[in-house]
């Protein structure tokens, strides 16, 4: 079944190349929905209390190199897989509702991207992971470069140039990672049988000296992907060039692969280095939070506001992981899903706004709520979730992250939480400047169409449903997360040790007032 999940999008995409252009889009939607169905089926059969891998597939692939075709689901990735399937369905449907150039190829590429992304989430072999991780980039390279928008008129770069910049950045990271992966396997084998199985590598372990540099090779790849502060140079140009349906999944899902990589690869394989470099990574995370937030509230381009806010949100997620406490990491996993669920609708909404105003600039918008109350309401919910409004699942994620950080490194928590106030401002500003006040002269807005509504509303419903019951995710992810963190901190029963900081002992008194 997990094989079906992985290859179904690719199969649909390939078949779609043979279909006439009119039906290519809807065929792709069908493929995305089928994949979503499989993903839901996998979640339904997921054993909640189990911290180990489920639905495992493990066949030797290149036995000489110790590379296995090894897939599996556990708490770390099960909801990211679901998120991928959900967002791809939404984006593909949104794209199918619009005229695309060379649609067969467009939808083929976007479905290839889904397979690659799913692959990097479920791969349990280090080299397989690296391959999928790099392969993700290829379809997006074409999607951005060919179907993207040239910004030369605005003094920006052309689409191909922006894409090239992105490729250069990410490829450098990827190459470092490839080197690091091979080095890990070889050092770990220590002359014996080489294996790339993440589980086996985790058990074998490698020395602290090697951990130190390999840690940073992997970290570089992941931090570029997110992107984190100082490594985000590719983001503004690429985001402005990208076609919005592709950008929705790119920002919604691909950024999470970076954060996920820390949990899947870095913490299990380089636990001592993770502890050693905890504060360095936390500083990068804090810088991302603050810098992303400050940038987000000074931008006027809608895509860049969303883009920089993602930098800040990914900063929170990284900080949660590197609090190295179960609560922080639980929050991080939850927040990956949450952030994907809010950022993809934002890009869809940006596309809708651009269609109505002919612009992607905040200064040329306003007053849209008047003629589009439903769109405004949907946008408001998304905006509130973006700023982690208490009552949303995003708040729960942030609360867990910050609590973990607070109990681990209190100063970092105090700095990080200022990002919360900033996010309130930029998210609400985004909403208010587009929807409220009076519209610029000559602007005639209109309500969201029924078909676009059917794309956007389910995503918003996901946000609302999670707001009522974030435990849905937490309950299923916690066992694996706890095991991962326990491996790093070396504690046998982290739950009992870490809850409440354990600075005081309690008499088990009856709680009564």
């Amino acid at each position, binding site marked *: 079944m997990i094989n079906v999940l992985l290859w179904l999008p690719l199969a649909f995409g390939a078949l779609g190349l043979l279909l006439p252009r009119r039906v290519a889009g809807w065929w792709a939607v069908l493929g995305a929905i089928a994949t979503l169905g499989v993903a839901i089926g996998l979640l339904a059969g997921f054993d909640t209390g189990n911290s180990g891998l489920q639905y495992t597939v493990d066949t030797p692939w290149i036995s000489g190199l110790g590379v296995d075709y090894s897939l599996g689901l556990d708490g770390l990735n099960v909801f990211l897989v679901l998120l991928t399937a959900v967002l791809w369905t939404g984006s593909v449907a949104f794209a199918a509702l619009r005229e695309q150039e060379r649609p067969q190829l467009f939808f083929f590429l976007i479905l290839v991207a889904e397979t690659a992304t799913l692959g990097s989430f479920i791969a349990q072999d280090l080299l397989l992971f690296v*391959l999928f991780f790099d392969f993700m980039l290829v379809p997006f390279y074409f999607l951005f470069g060919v179907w993207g928008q040239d910004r030369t008129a605005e003094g920006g770069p052309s689409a191909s140039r922006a894409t090239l910049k992105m490729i250069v950045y990410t490829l450098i990271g990827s190459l470092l990672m490839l080197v690091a992966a091979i080095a890990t396997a070889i050092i770990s084998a220590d002359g014996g049988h080489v294996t790339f199985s993440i589980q086996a590598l985790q058990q074998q372990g490698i020395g602290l000296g090697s951990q130190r540099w390999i840690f940073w090779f992997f970290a570089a790849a992941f931090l570029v992907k997110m992107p984190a502060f100082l490594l985000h140079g590719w983001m503004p140009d690429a985001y402005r060039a990208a076609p919005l349906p592709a950008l929705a999944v790119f920002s919604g899902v691909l950024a999470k692969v970076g954060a996920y990589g820390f949990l899947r690869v870095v913490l299990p394989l380089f636990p001592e280095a993770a502890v050693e470099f905890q504060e360095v990574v936390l500083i990068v995370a804090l810088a991302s939070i603050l810098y992303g937030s400050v940038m987000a509230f000074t931008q006027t381009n809608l895509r860049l506001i969303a883009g920089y806010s993602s930098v800040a949100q990914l900063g929170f997620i990284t900080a949660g992981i590197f609090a190295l406490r179960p609560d922080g990491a639980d929050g991080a996993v939850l927040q990956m899903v949450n952030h994907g669920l809010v950022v993809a609708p934002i890009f869809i909404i940006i596309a809708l706004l651009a269609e109505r105003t002919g612009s992607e600039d905040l200064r040329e918008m306003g007053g849209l709520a008047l003629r589009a109350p439903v769109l405004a309401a949907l946008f408001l919910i998304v905006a509130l979730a973006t700023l982690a409004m208490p009552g949303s699942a995003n708040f729960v994620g942030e609360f867990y992250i910050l609590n973990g950080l607070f109990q681990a490194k209190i100063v970092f928590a105090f700095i990080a939480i200022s990002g919360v106030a900033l996010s309130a401002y930029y998210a609400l500003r985004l909403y208010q400047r587009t929807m409220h006040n009076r519209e610029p002269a000559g602007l005639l807005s209109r309500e969201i169409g029924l078909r676009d509504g059917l794309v956007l509303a389910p995503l918003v419903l996901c946000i609302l449903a999670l707001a009522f019951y974030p435990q849905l995710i*937490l309950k299923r992810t916690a066992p694996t997360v*706890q095991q991962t963190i326990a491996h790093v901190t070396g504690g046998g029963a982290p739950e009992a040790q870490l809850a409440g900081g354990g600075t005081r002992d309690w008499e088990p008194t009856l*709680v009564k007032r």
Partner: protein
Amino acid sequence: MSATTWAWLVLLFPLLGSIVTAIGFRALPAKAAGVLGTLSIALSFACAVAALINLLGEPAEARHHASSLWDYASVAGLDIKLGVYVDQLSVFMAVVVTGVSALIHLYSYGYMQSDEGYCRFFSYLNFFVFSMLLVVLAGNFVLLIVGWAFVGFTSYALISFWYRRETATKAGMKAFVINVVGDIGMVLAAFLIFRELGSFDYGEVFAKAPEAFTTNEWTVTAICLLLLLGVCAKSAQLPLHTWLPDAMEGPTPVSALIHAATMVTAGVYLIARTHVLFNLAPTAADISAFIGLATLLMAATVALVVTDLKRAIAYSTMSQIGYMVVGVSIGAYGAGLFHLMTHAFFKALLFMAAGSIIAAMANEQNIDKMSGFGKAMRFTSITMLCGGLALAAFPLTSGFFSKDEILAYAGARGGMYLIFTVLGYLGAFLTAVYTFRLIFRVLPGRPCKEAQELIDTGHVAHGEPRNPATGELEDTAVVFPGPEHHIAEHSATMRVAMAVLAFGALAGGLIQIPGVDNVVADFLDPVFADSPLAAIHPSTSWSWIGLGIGGVIALAGIATAHWLYVANPEAPRRLEARFRGIHGFLLNKWYFDEAIGFLVVRPALAIGRFANRVFERFVVDGLVTGTEGTVRGAGGVVRAVQNGFVRSYALLLIAGFAGLALYFLIASS
């Protein structure tokens, strides 16, 4: 049914009402939203009363229950349930909130009828009440924060309800951001509580706290100060109060709802709820009391000079909340909460009356332009007078008993706390002056043009509605309630709401007369039985002496106002000219807005600009463009292949992958 079941129903109805009116905004016939919205709050009120009756049927010590629906977010040792906590305090708050809110909904049913956003208004209004009920009924700190933030959000939505007004959207944003600052304080307090006590649950936290903390230990002091940050933001206490006067951009029923029954009283409730912690941190409690005192005096002085009718009442609210904060901080829990209740009555009433008058003035809010409404709007002016008397603590009205109870307690506690009594009476004098300044300006005298029109034709003024802040012509065709604004004189529902509140404002104090009866405090006392401060009681005779002083001060204040604004109408202008500096200082609201702008907003924007213009361009981009530049400098190679370069690059990438895959496939077989 148990009390907790009733409590869940109290929460359910407003939420349902909000959702139904929101979804049905196209399908619902006109006015249906108003009926549904009002009905849902009325049902919620009924459930709150049922919960109260349920509690009264139990022995006083056993009147507290917790109940939870499901695990909200409960892993890794953080046990967060969707739970409520029902005791005398929360039920008391729920009854007051739902009761007054129901009346405000009833008023809005008439007042907002000509507004295009009728459904949206009731949806927000219901959600507001739901949020506030969540604050008072929450069973743990996380749910409290959720309700707390919901209140902040809904106030944003309602303040910028007329979203075509730029002043309104700005004011909404200001309220929201300041409230988020308060939320952050609460969140940090929760983290610290969790670190020390290992739980977010009220029952557990309050049971463990006395053993865990020594008095004035820094941790518990820090917790209380962080909570206080939330209190200041939500209850508009110094220095986070600046959003409240601007919040008057919202429709008048919103002002009544935010400033009377809900939102601003949340801080008072929070201090009362966490009194166990504040008792362990007397320093923090004293700081809180002094903040309340400073706010009550500062706001009262500003209310003396502001010419905008609604803003003057808003500053009065700040001032009155100051009294409540002083009360619950120094230990006068019953008195503080009693004042919360009476204030809800008379302040809601004053806003409703102001709303009617503003409607009659075609949205003009400047009291200098108003006069003679006593004749033009008899019902409104009588109810306004009732509210004004209660606010000014005229003998035997509700405010008279509740305010003096706080001051008498401070006197009984003695020592340093006598300051609160003395300055509290000073504040009471100012209160009487500014209240009757408003009343003497608006009600008596020769009718102004609008009032005359009302007397002659019975019609409300039809002037072109302009934004009182900017003079900009309003967008009446679409969202702004046009000339069809309702006034109490014409609408039965508005009259009913105001009449009930007027009765409460006049007679509400009679349930708690020193030496006679003590209904509210007796009911609430068991909640605070664990507090060492609960043992302090002013004697009946001292209470009456205090009441006597209070009565004299109120009368003196009213007399002063009469002398200034009726007997010598030239006197205020002479005073203004004489004390130009002070007057300007007060008129600019002590320059708080400017200070915050200078200290917080401008630096933040400057950092943003720097990041954008300098850092992003030269540092971040430089990392790439630097290398690109080198390549370009090396020769014309790049230019020559630039077009083909990208494509071949990608092809290379794919070819590489394909080759790699092929190799592995062959190698593995």
